């Protein structure tokens, strides 16, 4: 199956990817492509947008119109694309730093506007591309190359941040549970409104090594053994949820979609 997906959707001549052995980015990218394939999205009407970071390199490997933009701005580029040509499917692939640090403002405003784009947040809890500095999702107490004495920042929960900002479809997935994660991505793309799927990524090179999480297999095993469903997580206290990998839908609701609302204005005022 994987090879069929590669043939159909990847820029074969540019493989293998630049990612480290054991990196979770490839797994998440496969889930995205599988979801696109399941939905039968028109490749010529789908634009993939990414920011800057290890994970953002994902866009370039896909044989769509792909925009590898500037650090943090992927969602803003995507907003322009969707607003200017609402008939296109727009999917954003970016890292936790890209989306929630430098690009946090764009993320919450796109969620607030409920513009119909889908964001896949590759959350490896660290800045991978620049060599392992702590990010807004690095748990308190963990280490990074700029947190040599342990991180004293309080982390964001990207999914809850987006939900709070008004995202109408929010889910969490991981690298181990590919079937569930693929389905969550599929549902997110299908959803008419702003959707985000935060996927727990695996960065053995930096996050893993800095925090003694073992190799890629150990990190995947951790996801397998510590997964809880979104419903189960709801019933838990913050303390109990610590270290758990949540997989499932956080919320899905209906709200007028931005470009459809704008179309109503055009229908009303356009000079024929």
């Amino acid at each position, binding site marked *: 199956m994987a090879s069929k997906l590669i043939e159909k959707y990847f*820029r074969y001549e*540019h493989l293998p990817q630049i990612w480290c052995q054991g990196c979770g980015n490839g797994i998440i990218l496969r889930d995205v492509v599988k979801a696109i394939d399941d939905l039968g999205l028109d*490749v*010529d*009407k789908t*634009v993939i*947008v990414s920011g800057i970071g290890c994970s953002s390199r994902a*866009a*370039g490997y896909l*044989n*769509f*119109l*792909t*925009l*590898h*933009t*500037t650090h*943090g*701005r992927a969602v*803003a*580029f*995507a*907003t*322009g*694309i969707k*607003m*200017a*040509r609402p008939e*296109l499917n727009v999917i954003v692939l970016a890292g936790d730093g890209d989306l929630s640090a430098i690009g946090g*403002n*764009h993320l919450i*405003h796109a969620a607030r506007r409920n513009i119909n784009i889908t964001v896949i947040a590759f959350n490896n809890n660290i800045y991978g591309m620049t060599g392992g500095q702590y990010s807004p999702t690095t748990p308190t107490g963990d280490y990074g190359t700029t947190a040599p004495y342990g991180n004293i920042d309080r982390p964001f929960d990207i999914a809850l941040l987006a939900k709070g900002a008004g995202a109408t479809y929010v889910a969490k997935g991981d690298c181990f549970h590919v079937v569930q994660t693929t389905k969550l991505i599929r549902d997110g793309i299908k959803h008419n409104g702003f959707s985000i799927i935060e996927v727990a990524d695996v960065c053995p090179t930096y996050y893993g090594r800095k925090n003694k999480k073992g190799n890629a297999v150990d990190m995947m095993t951790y996801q397998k053994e510590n997964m809880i469903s979104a419903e189960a997580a709801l019933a838990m206290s913050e303390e109990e949820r610590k270290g758990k990998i949540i997989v499932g839908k956080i919320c899905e609701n209906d709200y007028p979609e931005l*470009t459809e609302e*704008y179309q109503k*204005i*055009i229908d*009303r*005022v*356009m*000079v024929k």
Partner: protein
Amino acid sequence: MSKKVLMQGNAACVAGAIKAGMRFFAGYPITPSTEIAEMASLKLPTVGGHFIQMEDELASMAAIIGASCVGVKSMTATSGPGFSLKQENIGYACMAEIPCVIVNVQRSGPSTGLPTSPSQGDVMQSRWGTHGDHPMIVLSPSSVTETYYLTIRAFNLAEKYKTPVILLMDEIIGHLREGIEINDEDVQIIERNKLDLNENKKGYEVSGDELVPSKHLQGNMKYNITGLSHGFDGFPTNNNKVAGELHERLMKKIDENKDDIVTYQEYKTDDADTIVVCFGGSARIVATAVDMAREEGYKVGMFRAITIWPSPEEALRKLSERVKRIIVVEHNYGQYLLEVQRIVNNPNCKIDFLGKVDGTVIIPDEVLKVIKEVK
């Protein structure tokens, strides 16, 4: 057919943009450019286009590039602090060769400065604001009518050379209301080809001496667009030869087309021994001062850069070879002055400067005084 209307400079900019085919605008309010966003929000849906007020100027710049990548002519407008915020993505548009128009109605700086006061302090930032070597086209109108036509030209140049174009206005022109006569008969619009989604060619491919990639954004949907150095298919590369060739082509596509891009105005220069160099709103003051000086018998003329980057180097150098004196007048501390000093190569031609940075407008008498101060 021409029609006469009373219009503000900022409104003329939007009218020109829509005439040029702008169908997407993203912006964030800032004085003295705000009317451009307001007009765009009013007019765009009436022609089936889209307006969005983004969360900041970084986002606005990103959004117009995104829209342009999918075939929609796009513009943003800002001033001072907002122009600073747009710089990173302006560089992206240079590197990825994305046509778009950025309007900067200059205000006094640095920082928040004097928000409602006229200034021309962004001359150098408009040329070199984003990091790295890059090409740049900057146009500066001196009247409301010219704002209309130059906005159209900005879109055309952006499409032709696949590059961002900056319309560098100033508060004097942006907020000026005057009767303008629009005659669209001779207006030529360079259209973006319709996207043919099925064609699969390398987007950035150039052959031979070609400086602008003809396939790029002209119907080839499935390729990569990046701010990293890239090959013909837009995929990032670390290959120094490929990177070097790309960078050189980006600079050359503007440098070697200066004849097509550069425009300027000469006023009463034929017999002049003194030339006042200016651009934008300052030119109105200078033209009046020139007339006043002429009445008193001074042989003085005006040279106005319309395309300020690339500068009208050749024409100005030629002129400087036969005059005794050049006076540069601008509402800043001497930015275009540096370019004029670079250009002028005649030891017998003295270069003087009149500038202002206190937020007030230079008046013709002040220019006249400098003209008469023959040292």
